[in-house]
């Protein structure tokens, strides 16, 4: 679970990005139609124009808030239900089919149903909640099942009280699983937010902007918004990793 990027790894990333850009440029030259594949430079011009518009920060903020809300709901419910499933065998068995059903439901079905049930701005929140909840839940359950009973016995022999056993054995055992779940859930949840926004069309939303650009055949902007979405995903991943490294010190 080594997450630090060494110097040479950084070079590889840089080279692969340059290769990607070169490939993109070459293909766009061959196709020679910005409406189908805009060139990298036009995309970046469009990117710049987007970023300087008055509404940009609002669009970004609102989308981020939706993602964050959906995430927080699945975070708290995921931990609660994951904990119940992991500690109570019967609850776990009863609850598992629900999770499997949620996980097997196409994201588009979730969004379409949410469109019927909720106001436009809440559809993305619901969608991101529903895709990330099972992930966090299952990871927490997995973490609990992974707790070493030998350590619990050791604590019992040494008369460690229940609160300390929870804080000093249960919690650290579950933590790596929880963090892995958070990382995956945040990534998938963010994609669900954008997909839901494309369909639900809230007033200020990254997905709405993307869809509008598509309708006007403004392919550069579609690309530019996509790059913004990717950057946000990348940044949130980095933040989570940093956080993970600072608390899971004992590994690696």
């Amino acid at each position: 679970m080594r997450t630090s990027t060494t110097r040479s790894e950084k070079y590889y990333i840089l080279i692969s990005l340059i290769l990607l850009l070169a490939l993109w440029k070459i293909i766009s030259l061959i196709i020679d139609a910005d409406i189908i594949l805009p060139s990298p430079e036009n995309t970046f011009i469009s990117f710049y124009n987007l970023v300087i518009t008055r509404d940009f920060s609002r669009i970004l903020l609102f989308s981020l808030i939706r993602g964050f809300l959906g995430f927080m709901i699945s975070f708290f419910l995921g931990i609660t239900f994951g904990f119940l499933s992991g500690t109570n065998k019967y609850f776990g068995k009863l609850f598992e089919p629900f999770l499997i059903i949620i996980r097997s439901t196409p994201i588009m079905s979730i969004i379409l149903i949410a469109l019927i049930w909720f106001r436009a701005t809440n559809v993305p929140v619901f969608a991101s909640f529903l895709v990330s909840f099972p992930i966090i839940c299952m990871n927490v359950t997995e973490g609990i099942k992974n707790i070493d009973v030998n350590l619990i016995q050791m604590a019992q022999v040494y008369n460690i009280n229940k609160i300390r056993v929870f804080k000093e054995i249960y919690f650290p055992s579950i933590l790596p699983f929880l963090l892995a779940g958070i990382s995956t859930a945040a990534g998938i949840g963010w994609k669900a937010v954008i997909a839901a926004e494309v369909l639900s069309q809230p007033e200020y939303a990254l997905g709405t902007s993307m869809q509008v650009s598509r309708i006007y055949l403004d392919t550069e902007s579609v690309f530019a918004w996509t790059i913004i979405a990717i950057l946000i995903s990348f940044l949130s991943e980095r933040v989570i990793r940093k956080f993970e490294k600072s608390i899971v010190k004992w590994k690696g």
Partner: protein
Amino acid sequence: MALRIKNLKKSFHGLTIFENFDIEINEKEINCILGPSGVGKTTLLNILSGIIDADKGQLSDLKEKTISYIFQEPRLLAWKTVYGNISFVLKNLYNRQEIENITNKYISIVGLKNFKDYYPDKLSGGMKQRVSIARAFAYPSDILIMDEPFKSLDFKLKKSLIVSFVKLWEIDKRTVMFVTHDVEEAALLGNVIYILKDSQPTEIEKVVHINARQIDRILNPQKTAKTKKTLLKYLK
């Protein structure tokens, strides 16, 4: 004084390990248990420490005793350092300064001063075992249970730990239950040695008493030769 276990019965899914089993644990002495693998030594220790319940039997005196346990595996918390693993068992018993002193004392006794802030991940098997030993000694218990504490240690280290153990024990004579495969260890440390028979259910095949002080035995190992011979004979 002795703690008595009477009429002990324990079986796992039809496999009877103990049946009408009696054993006396002499207080403030080193009670050694020798026996082949799978005979039920760890099971006996787990019953004594309350980790598992017996199916039947009386071990009433044991209930109120506090216990330190050197398990067959180190059982360290991966997220705590050497220091953290030892102070873990002291936290509700002492104030901060005392915890620090006691923890540091036992870390030096097991020779891990320079590894105090290491996580178990970075320690060798023998080093982890030493942390487990230090933890058990640091905890102020009535009974010290040891399940092959000196295995996975090289000869020199084992020798030095046995010497430190005896010194510690001379100062602070706890009741010790000591399981080993090693005849030499038994002959050096035991005040009383129980040899378990390789049968199901198991029985005590032979009880050997040794009166000589452990320190004297360590200083004159040739004096244990006879005991070792006896023990070997009963272990077939």
